[in-house]
């Protein structure tokens, strides 16, 4: 392939230390997330784990500690070397996800609610290969964009097609998993990276129009999809059926009011809300901490994302910039998607809330990504930081 420059042509002073605001924001979110998870999960844990109310929080706590260690280690790791991991991580992700069709290994995949999204690792638990795919896409897309350069990225051949192909492969793999929301998230993250990387906006406009038209056509001829849209717009038309999740989530949020019912006082988490520890954890947060608490948490998320993009902007290395922007974008997309779903702004899809939702691998990967971001922050030129 190509050579990476071993030495800087001009030595520039680097900050050399990790970005402390980002670290603090991350740890703050993690701490709040864990507290909320404990409150949100104990009713469900009590019900499903034979009375062990602390089941979820203990497992999540272990992953959080491990995740923080990984984050701190990675912040010391030179992110430039991640170029080398781009293609291997892509192949690894594809390979792992392809096992869904391989006899023998296939049995390790776990099906819940008709979707096969998890692989069971005996003794450890389950993890979602799509989380791996997100990392691979971020690495590859930022690496490739940096390598192709501004001019090539502007063309269809370089700037769109290779990336489209990769997303296409993942789309097929995730179609087998019946993981539509995961596909959408990966496509969105990938798309936004090449958007930053300099892809021609014309294709975005064209693609957007195409997807929009296809969507309208699909919804028009598919009664089920149309019904989903109607339920999304007014879930109270079928509160016991398709609208159940949306209704319960909005009831939880609404009953919180301005000041909330108090930490631990949620009523909706008592089996009314689906997945109170996972996709709908924020509904519980809104119910317990009220508008005040929810708005403050959203503010912390916004600051974290802002800081992530700030690091991307300040980084003078193109790969670093794209990687930082990619990681930040992933957090942003997932957060916005989750908040949109629980508040009813978006139709119900499975999207977890970073740092809050129960899920060991996801948390571990998110913290690792924050580690990479911190590593990139160490590379910010001193002069520019001023």
């Amino acid at each position, binding site marked *: 392939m190509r050579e990476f420059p071993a030495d800087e042509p001009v030595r520039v002073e680097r900050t050399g230390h990790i970005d402390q605001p980002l670290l603090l924001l991350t740890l703050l979110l993690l701490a709040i997330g864990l507290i909320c998870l404990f409150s949100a999960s104990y009713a469900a844990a009590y019900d499903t784990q034979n009375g062990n109310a602390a089941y979820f929080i203990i497992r999540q706590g272990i992953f959080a500690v491990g995740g923080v260690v990984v984050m701190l280690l990675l912040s010391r790791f030179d992110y430039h070397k991640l170029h080398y991991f781009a293609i291997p991580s892509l192949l690894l992700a594809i390979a792992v996800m392809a096992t869904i069709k391989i006899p023998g290994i296939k049995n390790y995949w776990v099906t819940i609610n008709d979707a096969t999204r998890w692989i069971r690792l005996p003794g450890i638990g389950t993890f979602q290969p799509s989380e791996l795919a997100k990392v691979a896409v971020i690495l590859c897309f930022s690496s490739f964009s940096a390598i192709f350069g*501004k001019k090539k990225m502007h063309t269809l051949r370089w700037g769109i097609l290779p990336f489209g192909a990769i997303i296409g492969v993942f789309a097929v793999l995730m179609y087998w998993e019946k993981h539509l929301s995961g596909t959408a998230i990966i496509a969105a993250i990938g798309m936004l990276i090449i958007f*930053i990387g*300099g892809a021609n906006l014309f294709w975005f406009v064209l693609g957007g129009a195409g997807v929009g038209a296809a969507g309208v056509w699909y919804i028009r001829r598919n009664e089920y999809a149309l019904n989903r849209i109607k339920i999304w717009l007014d879930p109270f038309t079928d509160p016991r059926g398709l609208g159940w999740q949306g209704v319960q989530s909005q*009831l939880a949020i*609404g*009953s919180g009011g301005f000041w909330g019912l108090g930490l631990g006082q949620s009523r909706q988490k008592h089996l009314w809300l689906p997945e109170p520890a996972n996709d709908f954890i924020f509904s519980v947060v809104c119910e317990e901490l*009220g508008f005040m608490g929810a708005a403050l948490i959203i503010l912390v998320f916004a600051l974290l994302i802002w800081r992530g993009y700030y690091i991307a902007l300040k980084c*003078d290395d193109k*790969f670093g910039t794209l990687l930082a922007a990619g990681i930040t974008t992933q957090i942003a997309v997932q957060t916005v998607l989750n908040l949109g779903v629980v*508040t009813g702004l978006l139709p119900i899809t499975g999207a977890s809330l970073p740092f809050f939702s129960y899920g060991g691998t996801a948390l571990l990967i998110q913290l690792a990504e924050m580690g990479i971001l911190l590593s990139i922050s160490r590379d910010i030129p001193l002069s520019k930081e001023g």
Partner: protein
Amino acid sequence: MAKIERKSDRSIRRRILFLAVVFCLLCFGAVIARLVYIQVLNRDFYLQKALTNQTRDVTIYPTRGTIYDVKGKPLAISASTEMLILNPRQLSPSKFTDLSKAEQEEYRFTHHIASDTKSSDIELSDGDKAAIKETRAQAVAQVLEETLELDRETVLQKAAKDSAYQVLRRGVEKDDADVIRAFAKENKLSGCLYFNDDSTRYYPYGSFLAHVLGCVGTDEQGLTGLEKQYDDVLTGTPGRSVTLTDAHGNALTEDYETYYEPEEGQSLVLTVDEVIQHYLEKHLEIAYNDNNVEESVIGIVMDVEDGGILAMASYPDFDPNDPFTLTDTALAEEISAIEDDEQRSTARSEAIYAQWSNKPVSFMYYPGSTFKIITAASALEEGVVTEYTPFYCPGYKVVEGWGKPIHCWKAGGHGDENLREALQNSCNPALMTVGLALGRERFTQYVTAFGFREKTGIDLPGEAVGMYNMSSNVDLAVYSFGQNFTITPLQLVTAVSAVANGGTLLQPHIVKEIRNADGTVAQSFGRTEVRQVISKETSDLMCDMLEDVVTYGTGKNSYVAGYRVAGKTGTTEKIAEMNKEGRDLYVTSFVAFAPADNPKIAVLILLDEPTVLPISGGLNTAPVVRRFLEEVLPYLEVAPIYTEEEQSSRSVLMPDLTGMSFSEAEAALKKLGMTCASSGSASAVTDQVPAAGTVVASNTKAILYLGTLKPDKQVTVPDLHGMTLRNARATLQNLGLYVHVSGGVSDGTQTVTKQDAEAQTTVAYGTVITVETADMAQRAQ
């Protein structure tokens, strides 16, 4: 080989900035705006909906109040039982480990699950859950059908509801509840099939006062009688327990519970006296059987001074503990034989309503001669007649406007008589003359004033008002002796009480007090005057004249020795029913009050269709009143004043004389007015006839055995019916038996109508035979 572009260019920076703004400001801004909309602007909407979802609102039923008689004896009480609740939502298991052991094994077997698979790893599909729920519902329905005879379909329907709380049955007894609890525990269903506290109504004395008390439905709601009239008072105010629950319907911790204490039902204290009621019911039942009554017998006893009902009954009755079972078994069979479902159920509910009907307030009938009291009192009050106004009765009277003469009950007539005598004779032509003299307008005015054209206002449901429609002098003539218009028994008792008490019409009432659960009096009811109808003078005169009816006239058979009873007979034909059935059907009645000089109680007894001949108020009904008064007046502590003759034959209780010396025994008997003979020569009495404790006439001659044995022989009782008392006494004396006359008095014109030991039965030597006598000449209609 392309060279890696090291530097980020300006377009990258612009695009990153763009994303940062989109996410941080636009997207989060939209979410915040949405939160403001839901949490701040529309909180109440969501909160209300959420609370409706999350709360289980359970009504806590207060204990229903008790109904006491005037002396504080409980007649209707609520006892605690249990209420069976089903939580249909929880019938469906949420995971494998929720299943009972048997269900788990069954599931593993049917789904071919290896025995080493951990229970917690087995996932139940929605289909599995639904199937298990269905199986469980069937099992529950089965058990409830066996233990409580609950309808399977009803249980299954309730089990299929999307609900967390369904009441399956109230008033479950502990034994049945234990069986169901054991079943629920065994099948891991304790969370969804459980019991709450409940209460059930009991009437400890069965059919006693049944029509007045009424009965309650399955939810303890009053259906008839006082239970219905005072339902709100007795029920109290239900409390509520509002509990927050999870989606399975389980209560969250107690912190989330709000409890509103129920307000216990208030109790009723009736004016009804259990003892008087008991006497009344006893004698009504005897009268029903003696007279082979085809419809019913009705009785009311009222306190003439304050309008309180002391007793009220009709027979046949029903058991309010089991109000939906027809007492009339023949009728019940007739109804179950009806083929058509709808007709059968209509017939059944009609029969049940009829059975519950409180006839003393709802029965409408022609008052007949009892109404002559009202006609006479009105005319006396208006000064149209005096007690000595002369009349002549040729046995009929011709009234203008009616082609035929209207007959008196006595063929040939009563001849010359004054008003006082006309009442004793119950003479129709004389009273027609009185009524016509009063005129239609004034007659109607008094009928109205005596309360016959409106409800009495008693605190009982189902009160009727009779039909009164006077349009001619013929109507007036016939109305004057109580024919062709209807009243209710209660209206008559109320009006007669007014005649007796100095002329004031009172509003009858049956509840004396409403008491709070803690026993304090919440409300009390007493004398409520409606209006003054006649003067005190007229009232006194009427009392005197009506006493004569009993002492000398058609009411003779209600005379009670030692007591001054006033009253009037009544016999009417049920013309409409007679035309329909083509045979003679009668209502006989007797209304009385006592003591005549200072009236305390008024009594009406009425037989609807007696069939033992000869039929008349004086013969069928007056003796019933006598038997009743004979027991009630001593109970009411009315001091008896005997005439000399009565004094010699009054009823006394035979004392135990054994162990006494002859002279002591003789002295003891002498105090009672009795005499004695002796047999033997020992120093103390060893035996006696009549036996101690029997009721005897005070002119009885007892035999004392001093060491000798009483003849140990059995005597066959002769048939005494139709004999005068003198003959009966002689006949019995020859056999070594004694006679005692119920009521304590009998003149030479009276003959035996009843004897307590049946003819041809054997009794021990020296037994006292109690007989009843009546003047068979008193057949006034």
